[in-house]
């Protein structure tokens, strides 16, 4: 029985490593493309050359051109910069809200915990996507709106996770030792609690990234995201869908890049999750 469990563990570790490898290859590849690609391209993502509109992919335009004659390769990579940039900022903003919120609730417990978690319970009940769309329609579409609304979605999960972890960890002997040494809550949090919460927190953050990519692309697809002439991935897909009959490549390339990026982050998250579970 014991040997069986051991071998199962090894298998999941091997699978975790494979996921990590594939995931990081995809993610690093996309990030390098997003950073370096636009520099190598001789075309501007905004310059319209109507004479070369709707050209299929060839040696000159690797991904073809769009209906206004803009090079799709350049636009897709600029889109990657915009999408990934928004997502990174959004995930960090959520961390900045969720971490202190959860830590406060977990550390002080009692009435503070009851109050903070009650608020969380109510917020959990609100269907977030509908309200993101509603906010964006009212506030007006655009980068700031997307940033603010997406910044307020994922901290709920984080806060709950951090609170549950702090609740357990604060009873640990090493925290008692730190208290006995006269460390304040602030120092205990940074030096003792946070390092111990980091691996599961990293997994959660990694899983939030593909979700945020998904959501940002969805909002741009609805026309509520970054506005023309700039385009994030979702807007490119929306344009591609409109021209699907005559110029299918305008759909294929942005669609493929979004899916590969989401796949990469999903694999990375899963690999990391399996590794941390084994430890």
């Amino acid at each position, binding site marked *: 029985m014991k040997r069986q469990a051991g071998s199962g563990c090894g298998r999941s570790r091997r699978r975790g490593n494979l996921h990590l490898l594939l995931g990081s290859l995809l993610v690093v590849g996309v990030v390098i493309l997003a950073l370096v690609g636009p520099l190598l391209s001789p075309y501007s993502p905004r310059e319209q050359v109507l004479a070369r509109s709707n050209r299929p992919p060839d040696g000159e335009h690797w991904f073809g051109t769009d209906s206004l004659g803009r090079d799709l390769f350049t636009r897709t990579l600029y889109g990657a910069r915009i999408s990934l940039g928004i997502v990174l900022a959004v995930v960090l903003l959520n961390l900045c809200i969720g971490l202190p919120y959860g830590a406060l609730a977990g550390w002080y417990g009692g009435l503070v915990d009851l109050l903070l978690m009650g608020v969380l319970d*109510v917020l959990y*009940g609100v*269907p977030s996507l*509908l309200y993101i769309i509603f906010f964006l329609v009212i506030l007006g579409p655009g980068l700031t709106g997307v940033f603010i609304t997406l910044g307020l979605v994922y901290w709920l999960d984080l806060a709950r996770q951090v609170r549950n972890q702090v609740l357990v960890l604060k009873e640990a002997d090493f925290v008692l030792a730190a208290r006995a040494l006269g460390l304040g809550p602030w120092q205990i949090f940074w030096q003792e609690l946070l390092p111990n919460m980091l691996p599961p927190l990293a997994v959660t953050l990694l899983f939030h990234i593909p979700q945020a990519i998904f959501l940002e*692309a*969805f909002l741009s697809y609805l026309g509520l995201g970054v506005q023309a002439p700039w385009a994030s991935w979702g807007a490119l*897909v929306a344009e591609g869908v409109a021209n699907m009959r005559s110029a299918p490549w305008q759909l294929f390339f942005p669609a493929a890049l979004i*899916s590969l990026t989401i796949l990469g982050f999903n694999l990375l998250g899963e690999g990391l999750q399996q590794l941390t579970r084994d430890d």
Partner: protein
Amino acid sequence: MFMYLARRLGVSLLVLWLIATITFLLMHSLPGGPFTGEKRLPEAILKNLEDRYRLGAPLWQRYRAFLGNLVRFDLGPSYRYLGKDVNQILAEAFPVSATLGVLALALAFGLGIPLGIQGAVRQGSFFDQLIVIFTALGMSLPTFVLAPLLLYLFALKLGWLPPALWGGPAHLLLPVVSLAVLPTTLVARLVRGSVAEVLPAEYLTLARAKGLAEGVVLNRHALPNALIPVLAYLGPLAAGVLTGSFVIERVFALPGLGEHFVASIYNRDYGLIMGVTLFYSTLLVGLNLLVDLLCACLHPRFALLHRRGGGY
């Protein structure tokens, strides 16, 4: 148990009130009101419009009227489709969306549960690897990518299925499948995980020791426990299908509520946006409540687990 039920009911009512209030305040924080467009309307017309939609009264009076209407399920007028109110549009369009959504969820459970069980029972086998790959791919394809691709392949290139509009079962196939892929993969993953978790349990060994056939052990003893998390997941799943339907109905030109919602975003038809948001929110909140109550009845420990601000 009773405390849990009462608490869940209370929270749900609080959520509904919060949603209504946020919606109301946002709607009325619009600079200049819903009729300020690119073209400036003459004063007299604006005045008439505001009287028609009762925008002139003080805020708290309008808030009271708004809540009163809501309690009577009157979601107010559309600001774009003249003479129609949101309730009429809901009555026309929601059946289409509901058909799509229910069929997609049924497909997701009908396919995802057996796939997940097989994956868990034959862990590490070739079949299991296939499921893992399928779910990883399914989770990485956003609906707005998958639906146009399927449309392109099966309707435009191969010509097997109609590309759009609302008609017979053939018209339903592509939209339902594109809507169901993501929930199917999520259900399959969830079932695979939760079945794998209960498989080593001692009560299953006991059931086998009693001489029960493997199929009976699985169906009668393992599944009832393993499927509770799946039931609990119905709420988020329904929310996901809802989001998907916004895209699907647009791509396949279906006359559903999602299409109206997205069109109302483009038209800035604030009345309709507000109405649909409130309607769908209430639906989701109600569904979540129902699922939680059902879970608590089926599995009393569920209520215990969630009593203190959620233990997951």
